[in-house]
């Protein structure tokens, strides 16, 4: 139990002064070392990246509205899907949840005043910004047409501006490593008195597992992107068959990062869901330890599955079989989580709010995206679906569906904590319906298209695929409208929202035992923990005031 600011408990009070107004002026934001302000900077930056990537996505969908050319040339179309992928993956999905919610809530959940290295934390924002600026500069001066996977030898010979985009992704990778190191060290060394590993919120467990992947996989990606850039710029021939190079080596090195990167995107999503499920079912997690350790299991197994991207790249049948089976292990760990989340809902006192609506969406996308993933891990089926829209729909379901649902669940659940005000619940439920329906309408047609044999990344297609492509574009429009709605009511709530008070949800997560918005210094007195998070079985609605004795100092 966290003990903090007893006067604020219960009543809806806007906490002034807080971290937002403790210091004023642009300089105080640009040079801040407060993890909460850094989280807000990430919120602004990653949301802008999401908007940019979303605009590219809409342009792609408009182009595919008709079988032939619609609004752009073939080369522009190639640039569009490359930039869409690069921005969404490197500038939004990898950094968003750890950068925003990890930064904001990890220290609050651990009873710490800040992350272990606040200056490095600020550095990670600026590395992200630098990488983003380099990449966007490259996009303005020609863009790249390789797809976000930068496969050699095309990426090393294309006349488009691939080098700045590679270097941008390389620099953003360092930001990711720095954040990962920070979170691992914070979790190990900054836990408050009494907060043993098995009392840590599940959010922390999952973010920890994410950070392990970030630290160990990102450098390999950095290296391989650098090699492609060097070859493109100087002709060193490292992946060039004419000089003895092997393009398949690129694929191995690239997927050694980029498959675990999928778990960098989805584990933070699982982190959020574990918190939101508990808060809105008013129950502690069923099978806490299984959920906690399955995060580490996913992080571990994720390092041994990259070969399933090379089923059709001349890999031996034996290797393909091994990688297929190893990939299915991820399904086991994910299923452990899904069963525990649903078991937590059983006999819970469920409050169907906007964050909970996104949890339902998340479960749907995760289960169906995951099951199509297990199907794709089967070598014989993959040969049929390789490079079709089936793959596109699969990874959009699991990565994008999973991550976006969790991102939206998180922003609604923690909005009152971060800004001290409530958003409009009615509009939020409308937007949630729009987004979940829009997402299905966008990608279910793509599953069907892929199964019918429509290849990904093609500029035009035969007329038989027309109706389903129209359906997909219509779904994407619905989705875009939903996102704009969310943005609108959240911005309105910043000024006109009802004052939330410290704990509008009655959640027993540790982070809610601070005033809203939290003070610049998180805790006036260091909190002492006597039991785990989301303990709805003992005590009354508000936490007891008497400080408990730490069991582990």
């Amino acid at each position, binding site marked *: 139990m966290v003990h903090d600011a007893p006067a604020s408990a219960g009543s809806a009070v806007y906490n002034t002064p807080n971290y937002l107004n403790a210091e004023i002026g642009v300089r105080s934001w640009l040079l801040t070392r407060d993890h909460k302000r850094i989280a807000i900077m990430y919120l602004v930056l990653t949301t802008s990246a999401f908007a940019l990537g979303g605009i590219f996505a809409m342009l792609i969908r408009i182009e595919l509205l008709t079988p032939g050319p619609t609004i752009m040339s073939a080369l522009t179309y190639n640039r569009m899907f490359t930039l869409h992928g690069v921005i969404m993956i490197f500038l939004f999905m990898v950094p968003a949840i750890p950068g925003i919610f990890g930064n904001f809530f990890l220290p609050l959940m651990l009873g710490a005043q800040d992350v272990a290295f606040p200056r490095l934390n600020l550095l990670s924002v600026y590395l992200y910004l630098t990488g983003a600026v380099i990449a966007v500069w490259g996009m303005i001066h020609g863009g790249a047409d390789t797809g976000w996977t930068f496969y050699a030898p095309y990426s090393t010979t294309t006349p488009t501006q691939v080098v700045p985009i590679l270097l941008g992704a390389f620099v953003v990778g360092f930001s990711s490593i720095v954040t990962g190191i920070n979170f691992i*060290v914070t979790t*190990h060394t900054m836990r408050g008195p009494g907060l043993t590993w098995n009392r840590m919120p599940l959010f922390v467990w999952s973010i920890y597992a994410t950070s392990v992947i970030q630290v160990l996989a990102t450098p390999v990606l950095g290296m391989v992107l650098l090699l492609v850039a060097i070859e493109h710029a100087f002709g060193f021939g490292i992946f060039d068959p004419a000089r003895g190079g092997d393009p398949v080596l690129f694929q191995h090195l690239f997927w050694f990062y980029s498959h675990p990167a999928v778990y960098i995107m989805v584990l933070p999503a699982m982190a959020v869901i574990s918190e939101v499920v508990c808060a809105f079912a008013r129950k502690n997690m069923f099978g806490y330890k299984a959920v906690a350790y399955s995060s580490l299991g996913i992080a571990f197994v994720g390092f041994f599955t990259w070969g399933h991207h090379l089923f059709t790249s001349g890999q031996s049948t034996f290797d393909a079989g091994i990688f297929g089976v190893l990939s299915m292990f991820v399904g086991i760990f994910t299923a452990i989580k899904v069963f525990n989340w649903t078991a937590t809902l059983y006999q819970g006192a469920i409050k169907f709010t906007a964050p909970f609506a996104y949890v339902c969406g998340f479960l749907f996308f995760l289960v169906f995206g995951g099951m199509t993933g297990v199907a794709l891990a089967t070598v014989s089926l993959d040969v049929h679906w390789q490079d079709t829209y089936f793959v596109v729909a699969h990874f959009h379901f699991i990565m994008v569906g999973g991550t976006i649902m969790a991102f939206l669940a998180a922003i609604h659940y923690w909005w009152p904590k971060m800004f001290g005000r409530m958003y409009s619940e009615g509009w939020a439920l409308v937007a949630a319906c729009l987004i979940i329906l829009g997402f299905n309408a966008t990608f279910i047609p793509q599953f069907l298209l892929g199964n019918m044999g429509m290849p990904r990344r093609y500029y035009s297609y035969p007329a038989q695929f027309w109706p389903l492509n129209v359906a997909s574009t219509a779904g994407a429009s619905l989705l875009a409208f939903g996102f704009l709605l969310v943005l609108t009511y959240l911005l309105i709530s910043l000024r006109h929202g009802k004052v939330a008070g410290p704990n509008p949800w009655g959640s027993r997560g540790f982070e809610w035992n601070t005033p809203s918005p939290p003070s610049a210094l998180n805790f006036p007195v260091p909190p002492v923990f006597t039991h785990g998070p989301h303990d709805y079985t003992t005590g009354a609605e508000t936490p007891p005031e008497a400080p408990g004795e730490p069991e582990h100092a």
Partner: protein
Amino acid sequence: MPELTARAAPPLAHHFVDMRQQTEAARLGMWLFLASEVLLFTGLFTAYSIYRYLYAGVFEEASRKGVELWAGTTNTFVLITSSLTVALAIHFARLGRGKLAAALLGVSLLLGCAFLGIKAIEYANHFHEGQLPGKFYTFAEVQGPGASMFFTLYFIMTGLHGLHVIAGMTVLAVMAVRAWREEFGPEHYAPIEIAGLYWHLVDLIWIFLYPLLYLI
């Protein structure tokens, strides 16, 4: 050489409870960073292994005729000795003998410069002989598929390592200044210790590069 000058109080950042926690965090952070550095080089070691397996004979010939064994061996001794002086510097910094520690770090910096100097001579020779990566390769004595690949990997691996040597020397120089100002003592020596860890990693990577590029 007794050091009795007043030391500044060990700076405890506001978000740590005590010095022990701060030191632990710094140490763990550096080990994690080293792990990510090792993985950065792992991509190159993988590429080396694959191409050596594919072009075993050519790689062996290129290593025998293309690189100078004396230079690599001398550099190995130079770098290992510089690690020894760093280790001694940490030892004396803990004992509060900052001036001696700074002098030892100075020796390490000189050895680092010697390493880079020898490397520069080698690079100059490679340029002269046309032993260059990819499309720039003009070395007549070793030909065949994979011949230029050896030098591609040689330059990328030693080049990246050289950048790490320069970064490590910068860190050591900062630590030398701080040690000279008597900032370290029995309770506060974590910065110089983790700087040392980084330098040892730079050394260790060279110990793997040396046999791969010069011996086998």
